[in-house]
């Protein structure tokens, strides 16, 4: 069974909410990415999303753009990210999703990339700019390789599209809680409950909610209506601030653990 599906099954059994962390791969370098991944695993993080640096991350806000830039500067390539995942797999079974722009897959060749990702121990791909309408044989390839094709749903997504997306997606649905690029927000959207209910009307897949969550209070609020909460930019920001310090891992964990705790406080109703 795929590690993502396995993890969500366990969370359901334990009536727990999931906590998903996003970081940019290769920020500040791939060895740190490996160490951070192991630390996240130890801290009980449920899924790790690794952003594969791309030169033109048009769905990302400034914080993640800068992370991608640092990743590129440290020499990170898609192939090296896969090697890093393989290295993480020697010590950890934390579910890993690659957050990636389509051109990087397209360049490598979809079939080759999906096969290589599966071999490295990746569990799912979230391709920012590949809507189901353009996916062609992507989902079939992913299914054959045992990978989850994770799709986004946005506040602008009408019911007809929700229906299409949940049919095509696997692992979990990622609900982008507001229109916009990745980045931190002062407050969380008040339409999350409504949207997650609409999504759940169409699917039994777990619904993760992200984009803009940066404090334990926000994480707690969002967890009320979500199966999992995603925090990205806020953690990337910590990495940016302490990238050069020797205790980077400790500092990032000190920031992340209270977020995870806030999410884990919430129990799902039986």
């Amino acid at each position, binding site marked *: 069974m795929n590690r993502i599906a396995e993890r969500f099954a366990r969370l359901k059994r334990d009536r727990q909410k999931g906590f998903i962390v996003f970081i940019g791969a290769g920020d500040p370098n791939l060895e740190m990415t490996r160490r951070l991944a192991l630390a996240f695993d130890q801290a009980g993080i449920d899924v790790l999303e690794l952003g594969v640096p791309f030169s033109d991350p048009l*769905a*990302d806000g400034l914080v993640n753009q800068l992370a991608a830039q640092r990743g590129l500067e440290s020499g990170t*390539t898609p192939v090296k990210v896969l090697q890093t995942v393989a290295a993480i797999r020697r010590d950890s079974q934390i579910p890993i999703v690659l957050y990636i722009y389509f051109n990087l897959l397209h360049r490598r060749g979809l079939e080759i990339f999906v096969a290589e990702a599966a071999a490295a121990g990746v569990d799912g791909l979230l391709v920012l700019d590949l809507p189901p309408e*353009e996916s062609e044989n992507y989902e079939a390839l992913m299914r054959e390789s045992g990978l989850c094709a994770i799709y986004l*749903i946005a506040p602008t997504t009408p019911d007809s*599209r929700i229906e299409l997306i949940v049919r095509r997606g696997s692992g979990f649905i990622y609900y982008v809680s507001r229109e*916009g690029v990745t980045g931190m927000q002062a407050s969380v959207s008040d339409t999350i409950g409504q949207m997650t209910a609409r999504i759940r009307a169409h699917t039994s897949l777990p619904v993760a909610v992200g984009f803009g969550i940066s404090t334990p209070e926000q994480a707690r609020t969002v967890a009320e209506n979500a199966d999992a909460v995603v925090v990205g930019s806020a953690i990337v920001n910590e990495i940016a601030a302490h990238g050069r310090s020797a205790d980077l891992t400790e500092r990032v964990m000190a920031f992340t653990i209270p977020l995870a705790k806030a999410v884990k406080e919430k129990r799902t109703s039986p």
Partner: protein
Amino acid sequence: MVGAVGFEPTTSWSRTKRATKLRYAPPTRVRQRCARRRAIANSFGRKDLRPPLRRTPFAVLATGGALRENGFMNAVVDATLPDAHGRFGVYGGRYVPETLMHPLQQLEEEYARAEQDPEFQRELTYYLRQFCGRPTPLYLAERLTRELGGPKIYLKREDLLHTGAHKINNAMGQILLARRMGKTRVIAETGAGQHGVAAATVAAMFGLKCVVYMGEVDCRRQELNVYRMKMLGAEVVSVTAGQKTLKEAVNEAMRDWVTNVRHTHYILGTAYGAHPYPMMVRNFQRIIGDEARRQILEQEERLPDLLVACVGGGSNAIGLFYPFLQDASVRMLGIEAGGEGIIPERHAARFQGGSLGVLQGARSYILQDEQGQIQLTHSVSAGLDYAAVGPEHAWLRDQHRVEYSYATDEQALAAFGALARLEGIIPALESAHAIAAVMERAPKMPRDQVIIVNLSGRGDKDVAQVAARMKL
């Protein structure tokens, strides 16, 4: 391989000088001919002026106007594209984050309704005539023709439009669409600043808020247009990411759009991006070719032999080419920016150094490295300095319907000076690339042929930059 437009800067073309007597018809004769032409057209429909649409062999231009040996194909290019998925063959499509998918579908639907709506068309035609100054002349460049000693060279004078470039054709269409959709704010990306000025202009006309994204490098090299946009009431955001040119401006515009899509329309300025943009922009720009076709039939009583246009994203080129696609005898030449030569990161000629990829909403030819990271580009012309090319152009190239070549910075600068001195017209540096190609090709072509070159914009914006280079 198709070489660079290979004439040496400044003087070599004048050596080809041959005294050509222009058979330029005096006004009365032109009028008589026009009347005759109209009578014929009316009695048979215009179709008689072009070859039948299907199964017509057409000549394929390889180099220098030579007919390709195996150039007879019975598949005339399909002008009904894109298909329902926004594809031109394998190119095009809609590769965007989910937040934009539904808004793009709504835009596609609204555009389809507008296109069929006589009221929309009437309004657009009215503003294009009364505000923008259409139709633009198709002007016989007599001295340039004589100097080159080849075919008659006609300039399609988009430079004479209000705001100074073809960009306003599309901006006008899209602002009317934005109003229909009830949007209160528009955004645009711009490289040379001509599209930004056009967007700022139409936004001012209709009282919509306008924000224009422009790379910091372009803000500097096209400063005049930054001032114009500001005077027109637009906010100009200088983009400092990456190489600080057009590609980064598009990224920023898309980020803004994703964030404000409910009340904002993105007036994309070229025949690129996610469906329906390449199709919609083409259709708003095809008025260039529609007019040129009518005008050349009136002025020369024949179709042209060659069309030439510069290709940034590809809007002025597709605008000129599209109405001629079924005219098998008309060859077409798109000119990309050769920069300092076809060396990685020193040019923007996607068909020379590029490969198939997906960038900013579309699948097309892009300049990228082995890993799929987008490469740096360079051109003296901000409007051509872009890593991707419109998907319809990629498809037309595959069909061998249009030939694509390039002109270097030096060649474009030489053409810029030549047109100014020979014709009294200072072209935009973008358009100067097309002129450079004409200067290279024309001397090798028969004198009884006719070339139409799209003079997509005027060079006011480039005067300071060129003056500095020439140390004036």
